[in-house]
């Protein structure tokens, strides 16, 4: 058996010398492997460079005790990527230099592109168009597959829908309640100060009732769900792409629109309005409690006054928003999930984009609702 590599690291050394015929020479000795070179590569390289400036120099590498590809490459680069004419190598070290000569042709650098910015802008616009197109295609595919489902309702993904409902709905009750309650309290405190100044204490009911039921409740619940379930859906579909699970479904002839996407859209469209009711309810309780301490309006009279201040149609409007927001979030999350490329970075980017897009979409949709229904359910009693 061969001797093992000695544990002690021998210093790599470069010395100037003189060859027998009087020519300049350089003698290298010691260990020229990664362990020894790690800390002194730059220094040695500049030393070698100086010596290599003399093309007629003889190189004596025969006293190098240990050599590896790293050491060989370092020396060879100092030579200007070709062997010197006069070279003495230790026995067995020839192999390290033999494949180096082919390494010379390195990768060509990317050429400079003066139109880079213009190209980037164009690419971004094309990407946006592609996203819109992809979204429309997804909706179309889901509709086609849903028609098939109407003919065979028993084959529907009922279990998946129920599982998704639990995940996006039931499990979101805690966080939406907490956030809703705090928002209700804060809002009530802030308004109470202002209303007190005008002696309009009783209008806290109108203010909170309208604000929370019509606008804040739906938007807060939707933003929370977009962050919570939207990211989860994108990540799940994305990982399934990375691990080729989506391809496995396709080759089994199981359309992933029906098994994976439809259940999520249906579940969110059902869960979202309910979550909105829940969030608004808790926020109103928080608001009523704060109004009680700040303005002396009892919780009982707060809720007695609520139906008078907020027409019932606002509840329906909130529920309608819920259905739209839920479906939008699920659709966007699935769209981005399916577009994830099979690598980890794309997964991260996809998830971020999904959440940002769905929150933006929710707010845009809310604005559209506000314009369309501007004269519905707003009565000053």
């Amino acid at each position, binding site marked *: *058996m*061969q*001797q*093992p*590599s000695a*544990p002690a690291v021998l210093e790599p050394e470069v010395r100037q010398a003189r060859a027998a015929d009087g020519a300049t020479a350089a003698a290298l000795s010691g260990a020229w*492997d*990664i*362990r020894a*070179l*790690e*800390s002194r*590569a*730059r220094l040695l*390289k500049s030393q070698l460079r100086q010596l290599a400036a003399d093309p007629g120099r003889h190189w004596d590498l025969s006293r190098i005790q240990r050599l*590896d*590809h*790293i050491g060989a*490459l*370092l020396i060879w*680069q100092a030579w200007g*990527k070709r062997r010197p004419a006069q070279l003495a190598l230790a026995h*067995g070290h020839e*192999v*390290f230099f033999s*494949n*180096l000569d*082919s*390494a*010379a*042709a*390195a*990768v060509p650098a990317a050429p400079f592109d003066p139109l880079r910015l213009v190209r980037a802008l164009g690419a971004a616009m094309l990407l946006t168009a592609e996203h819109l197109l992809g979204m429309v295609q997804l909706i179309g595919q889901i509709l086609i597959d849903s028609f098939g489902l109407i003919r065979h309702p028993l084959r529907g993904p009922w279990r998946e829908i129920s599982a998704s409902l639990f995940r996006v709905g039931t499990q979101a009750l805690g966080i939406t309640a907490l956030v809703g309650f705090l928002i209700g309290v804060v809002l009530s405190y802030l308004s109470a100060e202002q209303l007190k100044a005008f002696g309009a204490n009783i209008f806290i009911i109108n203010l909170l009732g309208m604000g929370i039921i019509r606008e804040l409740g739906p938007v807060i619940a939707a933003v929370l769900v977009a962050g919570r379930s939207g990211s989860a859906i994108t990540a799940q579909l994305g990982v399934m792409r*990375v691990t080729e699970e989506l391809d496995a479904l396709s080759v089994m002839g199981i359309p992933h629109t029906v098994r994976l996407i439809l259940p999520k859209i249906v579940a969110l469209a059902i869960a979202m309005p309910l979550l909105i009711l829940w969030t608004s309810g808790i926020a109103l309780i928080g608001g009523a409690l704060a109004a009680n301490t700040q303005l002396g309006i009892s919780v009982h009279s707060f809720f007695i006054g609520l139906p008078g201040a907020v027409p019932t149609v606002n509840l329906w409007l909130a529920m309608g928003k819920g259905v739209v927001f839920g479906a939008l979030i699920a659709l966007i999350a699935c769209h981005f999930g399916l577009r994830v*490329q*099979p*690598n*980890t*970075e794309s997964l991260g980017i996809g998830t971020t984009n999904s959440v940002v897009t769905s929150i933006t979409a929710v707010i845009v949709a809310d604005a559209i609702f506000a314009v369309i229904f501007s004269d519905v359910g707003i009565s000053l009693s």
Partner: protein
Amino acid sequence: MTPVIEVESLWTQFGDHVVHRDLNLVVMPGEVVSLVGGSGSGKTTLMRQILGLEQPTRGTVKVFGIPLQGSSAQLVQKIRKRWGVLFQEGALYSALSVFDNIALPLRELRAFDEDFIGDMVMLKLDMVDIERRHASKMPADLSGGMIKRIALARALVLEPELVFLDEPTAGLDPDRSESFVKLIRSLHQKLNLTVVMVTHDLDTLVSLSHKIAVLAEQQLIVYGSLKEAIAVQHPFILNFFLGERGLRALSAVGASVKLSGKD
């Protein structure tokens, strides 16, 4: 001479499922050791424990004479620069190109300039027989066999003294398996590499390994040369080496092994 790897009375237990019972293994410098055993016999687990990725329930693992458990983080870090690992699935960083994957360990040293790193990467790509034009590709755009060879290039880029290979030839065509065997053999001669590999590929196993460690019944039932391994009467060995495929591989390399009980 200090052993490269020393595993002493190692126990591994998951719940009440015992995977290794009092297992001992010593690998000396310059040896090529193949770890074989049935599916689920604990080969991958053993390798992960030697690499310090998992903790054994009991027992010690020393690499280059340094115990992995209880040593300072710096010391363990030093060991990690001296070994290279080829994972079963390659484990290339999917967000980095082939070039950057191989360059990463070199860049991490902060000792070499980009020109050097570029040449080194190209050299390693040549070594594992990957054309240079693939250097800018992303791992997702590569075939399974290419991923494996590039992962090997990455494992070798720091000129390790110890190399772990998990199923190195699975997924390679016979030609490439052959050149893989040649590559490992030449590296072993050049650099006196110590190799520990898990493999089911009999050709690779027979043509490369000095020693064979057979894992069965929670222990190493054999640890020795091919000849010694074949001599042991155990159902796994009978099936693995002396089955039809095994005999073919053995005769192909002209192993002058006396096949006990079979001829």
